[in-house]
């Protein structure tokens, strides 16, 4: 297993290098001069020339790329053009908040989504099944910003149960986590339902029932465990997506995470900040995929590390 992990990590290096090249080059194709974005509405040509020189913007591209890669290898992602703060500090400050939000969303999604899926599979066509279907439709059809605003209106403005937005304890976490996890709840409910229906009809379930095993044990231990593989796939993909793409949720709920940081960096043409975050988020995505694969093996003994 260790050899498997080591090999996967080594394979990640060319992937990340590719990301680095693309992230670096794309920003040269994109219009919008970082210095223009830095100095605001008015400037003079001398100041612009001086800043371009300071930021090495006029150096040849290969030279700048080499300089950047040299920094990355040493763990230095450079300094923000706009704030002059080290990018690494900015990421270290914000990523835990994004992780917290993504984790909470996944937790909510697993609890609600899998429960709904199991309940609907136990009695297809019953009330739980119809409820789960309704939730799934809503979760898949409504975009996250719409769900987010509705949640704020209901729970914060009308009911005054929770604060509308901001960062803090559990009270601040619930609404954004629910908004973010909505899509996964929907997917998981449907995925769990079909996987459960399949495994509930399997021979081993019939055998277990024939042995006189209690129904709850049959559902949880025999059927659900065998239905887990597709569920883990959805969880893994969504978690990776949440870590890298909770931009809308973070914006709507004023959550000070990495998503908003990236959006601001793009709007202000803060090249080092964009490059650093893209690189970091890609590394996270690779890592989450690796963890997902490890989870397969943990759940299904037939999956071997190869």
């Amino acid at each position, binding site marked *: 297993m260790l050899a498997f992990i080591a090999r996967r990590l080594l394979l990640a290096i060319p992937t990340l290098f590719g990301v680095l090249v693309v992230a670096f080059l794309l920003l040269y194709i994109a219009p919008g001069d970082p210095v223009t974005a830095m*100095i605001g509405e008015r400037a003079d040509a001398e100041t612009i020339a001086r800043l371009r020189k300071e930021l090495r913007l006029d150096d040849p591209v290969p030279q700048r790329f080499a300089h950047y890669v040299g920094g990355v290898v040493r763990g230095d992602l450079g300094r923000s053009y706009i704030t002059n703060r080290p990018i690494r500090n900015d990421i270290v400050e914000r990523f835990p908040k994004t992780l917290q939000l993504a984790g909470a969303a996944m937790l909510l999604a697993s609890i609600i989504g899998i429960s709904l899926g199991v309940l609907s599979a136990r009695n297809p066509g019953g009330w739980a099944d119809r409820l789960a279907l309704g939730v799934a439709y809503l979760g898949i059809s409504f975009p996250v910003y719409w769900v987010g605003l509705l949640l704020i209106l209901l729970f914060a403005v009308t009911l005054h149960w929770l604060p509308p937005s901001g960062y803090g304890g559990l009270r601040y976490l619930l609404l954004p986590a629910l908004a973010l996890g909505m899509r996964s709840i929907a997917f998981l409910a449907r995925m769990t339902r079909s996987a459960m229906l399949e495994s509930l009809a399997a021979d081993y379930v019939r055998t277990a029932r024939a042995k006189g095993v209690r129904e709850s044990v049959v559902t949880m231990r025999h059927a659900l465990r065998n239905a887990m593989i597709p569920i883990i796939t959805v969880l893994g993909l969504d978690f990776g997506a949440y870590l890298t793409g909770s931009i809308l949720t973070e914006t709507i709920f004023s959550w*000070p995470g990495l998503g908003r940081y990236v959006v*601001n960096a793009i*709007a202000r043409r803060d090249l080092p900040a964009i490059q650093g975050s893209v690189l970091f988020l890609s590394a996270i995505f690779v890592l989450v995929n690796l963890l997902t694969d490890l989870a397969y093996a943990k759940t299904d003994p037939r999956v071997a590390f190869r």
Partner: protein
Amino acid sequence: MRRLLLIPMLAAVACRGGDTSSDRRTLVDSRDNYDPRSLDPALSTDVPTGRAVAYLFDGLTQFTPDARVQPALAEQWEVSPNGLTYTFHLRHGVTFHDGSPFTAKDVVHSFTRALDPATHGGRAEPLRPIHGAAEFAAGKATTVAGLAMMDEYTVAITLDEPLATFPKLLAMPVAAIVPAATPANFGERPVGTGPWKLAEWKHDDYLLFARNDAYWGGHPTADSLRARIIAEPSTAVAEFESGSVDVLQIPAGETSTWTEDENRTPLLSSVPALQLVYIGINTTRGPLQDVRVRQAINYAIDANAILKTLVSGRGRRAAGVIPPTLAGADTLRAPYPYDTTRARALLAAAGHASGIDVELWTTSNPVYVRIAETVQGYLGAVGIRTKIMQRESAASREAARKGQTDMIIKDWYADYPDAENFLYPLLHSANKGVGGNVSFFQDPEFDRVVSAARREQDEVKRNGMYREADSVAFTQAPMVFLYFYNDLYAVQKWVKGFQPPVIFNGQRWTTVGISRTAP
């Protein structure tokens, strides 16, 4: 199984009690929609930074909420007869937040620091008029020649040429006074003389300011001020409605839901912002070089309808570039009327009876996109075929500066309350391109009058010149004069003494209080 479903519900209910809103000795602002870039005045180019700098620091002068300039760290000043030298007499007994005393040395140091290339500032535009500033910034001199400390409480500043607006420039954030010691993390841990001290800065979340009990102007009424950073305007509205923020700037798209609701109108106050929304016409490109074509474009567009329907009437039609609230504006000048017949006639007279093709650029700002689409319709009706080029702001700004845009929808928000801040950057030939004149307008008469006005110390004469220059610009039509925008604020009924500022750094919250009825 059912227990699993109950957990989130229980959690939601459990959270209902607990800590409700914070201590109501704290004022809460919701206007910042992105994190300030730094709290170092030398790096200030954006509005959130400018506001925070106004809380933490003082300039030699400062703006009131209604945009008058008044003495701050300078108690008074006089100008030499030739208009070149300003002598500032500084306030005695002022201390920085760290207890060190404020003296003339700090003024010289602050301005030198802001101009110093090593500060990585590069935004010291307001200090550029000082004699020797350019040489120093370019590394050709070790000191700024025009800065002189006369004694501990007197500073003499000599300019390259007379500039009547200079005292106003000194109220801008970049000219704020910092102490002699500015460590590397000064932008995170600022020390000033202002009415508020920085207590906490959580990036992308909030800034917390604590009142400075030793403030020379009398300490603020409230204990602290929390500037929340709320990226999404709809969220800010929800925060206001749930009572957790005290002041809200109402987004343009939500105007009517506030102005047409009887429960909400008592909370509203409107203030004319020093903001011009216009369509810059590049006067060097193709048929647009002809003044008749530019006038035709102005006649062809029903700007009243745009103001009324697309911005809910929040503003005043522009008849020139000077906002009507500023001295020098000709409030009697009538804007271009909507007159398609005249537009067609002017086009025909210019030899374009069969119409012309233009590109109209806009950012992705939804209001401006709608304006662009509307303008496209109006222009099409008189034979001007318009292609809309929508690019995000950095890209469209760059294209405009390089002179690649025929027409571009833009706004200009004053840095300081003076007509010169509209005429000079937007239309003087010295500012073509990056300087702000994206019309690439060059008119000798206009340039001459504006340049003379900048030097003129006599206010009455100066205002007359402003009016004259504005009239030239109006006739030459280097832009479509759309409207001056109004800011609309909602202020909670428990907040006392908040006056919406005309200029972005004009409200320092020092006299704003919270009544006992606050939740």
